[in-house]
């Protein structure tokens, strides 16, 4: 009986976390964009405008839920829920610290990527159900883009999995630090099993994974529909793309899903490439920095710091680069990223055979 209560607490905790993160994320995004453009962003609501997003969500909660007369009612109403739940379920398998993981799945990585692909289905439902040409155009673009970019992302991930030899996210995490049960070699020659720190992270264990990480990061931008890959909701062409017709709480859910997706893909990137919840501080001689900073509490801190750094880079990129044209988007995916990802996978195989 007790474990059901634990399940509920964890589920509610994860939901609360993603909701809070979305509020914080929207505020951070507005502030970052403002500072980049020499503005101040929100300043009026609360100190430094910190209550702005709370005011926004309060406004959205009070708005009427409008369903267009010509819409496909069932698809239209279900779509925001499916979009959000697909992202939210992805959090279930992600480890937060040593011994801290909501669901210990052997196929964790596979599960995460299977479940977040369902978001595409929700987006297609939203676009089709709205019965609006801008929505369906946005949804079609989104589906084409997400499905294409899953290929380089998938191969970048496979090159990690070939090094790690497991799909269990918790095992992949513990392999990248002092808690590892197997020998870790920095760049394939220096044994750092007891040193830990950033030397043991996957991108330093096998340096070609730096390229795999960049490929994964670019593809993850595309999968979370963020600039420069935001053609599904290109304001200047498609109004707001697939969520043009949504109001109030349904719109809030779509937004929540977008920001949760940002956090989720960044967290997966951190787990696979940047040492998950492991500390960046190595053991140096008698100073056991790594040992001192490795436990559940520190784990949560490290993974949140690393993930938020990646989220910050996503925002920085969004406010720097202009939007891709559709053909450029596909050319980048199929002509540059996919061959590079294949090359990374090949190097991973060779690395595994000869250097580990």
């Amino acid at each position: 009986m007790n474990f059901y209560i634990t399940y509920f607490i964890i589920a509610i905790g994860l939901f609360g976390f993603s909701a809070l993160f979305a509020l914080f994320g929207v505020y951070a995004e507005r502030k970052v964009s403002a500072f980049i453009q020499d503005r101040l962003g929100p300043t009026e609501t609360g100190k430094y405008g910190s209550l702005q997003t709370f005011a926004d969500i309060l406004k959205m909660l009070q708005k009427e839920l409008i369903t267009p007369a010509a819409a496909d009612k069932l698809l239209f109403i279900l779509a925001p829920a499916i979009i959000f739940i697909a992202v939210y379920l992805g959090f279930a398998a992600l480890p937060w610290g040593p011994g801290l993981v909501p669901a210990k799945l052997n196929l964790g990585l596979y599960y995460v990527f299977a479940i977040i692909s369902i978001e595409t289905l929700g987006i297609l439902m939203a676009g089709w159900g709205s019965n609006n040409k801008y929505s369906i155009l946005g949804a079609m673009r989104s589906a084409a883009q997400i499905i294409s970019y899953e290929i380089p992302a998938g191969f970048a991930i496979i090159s990690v999995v070939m090094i790690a030899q497991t799909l269990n996210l918790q095992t992949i995490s513990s392999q990248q630090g002092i808690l590892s049960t197997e020998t870790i070699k920095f760049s394939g020659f220096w044994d750092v099993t007891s040193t830990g720190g950033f030397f043991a992270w996957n991108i330093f264990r096998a340096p070609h994974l730096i390229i795999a990480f960049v490929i994964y990061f670019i593809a993850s931008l595309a999968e979370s529909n963020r600039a420069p890959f935001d053609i599904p909701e290109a304001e200047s062409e498609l109004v707001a793309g697939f969520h043009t017709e949504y109001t109030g709480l349904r719109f809030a859910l779509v937004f929540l899903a977008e920001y949760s997706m940002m956090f989720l893909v960044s967290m997966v990137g951190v787990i696979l490439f940047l040492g998950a919840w492991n500390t960046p501080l190595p053991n140096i001689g008698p100073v056991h920095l790594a040992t001192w900073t490795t436990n559940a509490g520190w784990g949560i801190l490290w993974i949140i710091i690393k993930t938020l750094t990646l989220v910050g880079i996503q925002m920085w990129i969004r406010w720097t680069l202009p939007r891709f044209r559709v053909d450029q988007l596909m050319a980048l995916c199929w002509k540059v990223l996919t061959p590079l990802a294949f090359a990374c996978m090949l190097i991973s195989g060779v690395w595994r055979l000869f250097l580990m």
Partner: protein
Amino acid sequence: MTNDIMTNIIKGISTTLKGLSITFRHLFASHKKRELLPASDNNYFKQLEGTNTIQYPHQKLPIPEVGRYQLDVEMDDCIVCDLCAKVCPVNCIDIESIKATEAIGQTSDGTTKRLYAAKFDIDMAKCMYCGLCTIVCPTECIVMTNQYDKTVFQLSDLTYQFSDMSPEMAAEKRKEFDVQQAERQAAKLAAMQKKEGGA
């Protein structure tokens, strides 16, 4: 062919890094509040580096006193000559005058006033801010002010009414004038009859 692709890729990466470095610099660069100088100041354009945008309702840029923003009429000085309404290219000034029975006073520059303004409306929604009306005005009673933040909730509020005459008063003045005209007419008639009778 392969060379082209490689140069494209290298150019793509280098330009992206360049752009990212520019936005990164701006992310931390502009934390100074903007000093409020008029546009005529020598340092005005140097201020654009490293400062935030103007926080408008809290900060306002100084503007020249002779700005051309809103029309204003000093009714005491107006002789209701209708020149401004005639010169206006967009017909935004609407004047209705009543002749007075006698001189009703003087403007501050000593011109005698002989007309009442029953209506002096300026539709600022139509105004194109050319300032021609201020040039033709013989008594310089219509001027443009430096008031620029004029927001109203109803379109009709943009029609400024400068006349201070009530409709009753206007009707009374009209009646007085009509009576005077009638008296004059009668006097004229009597004089003519007298003349004819005398002849």
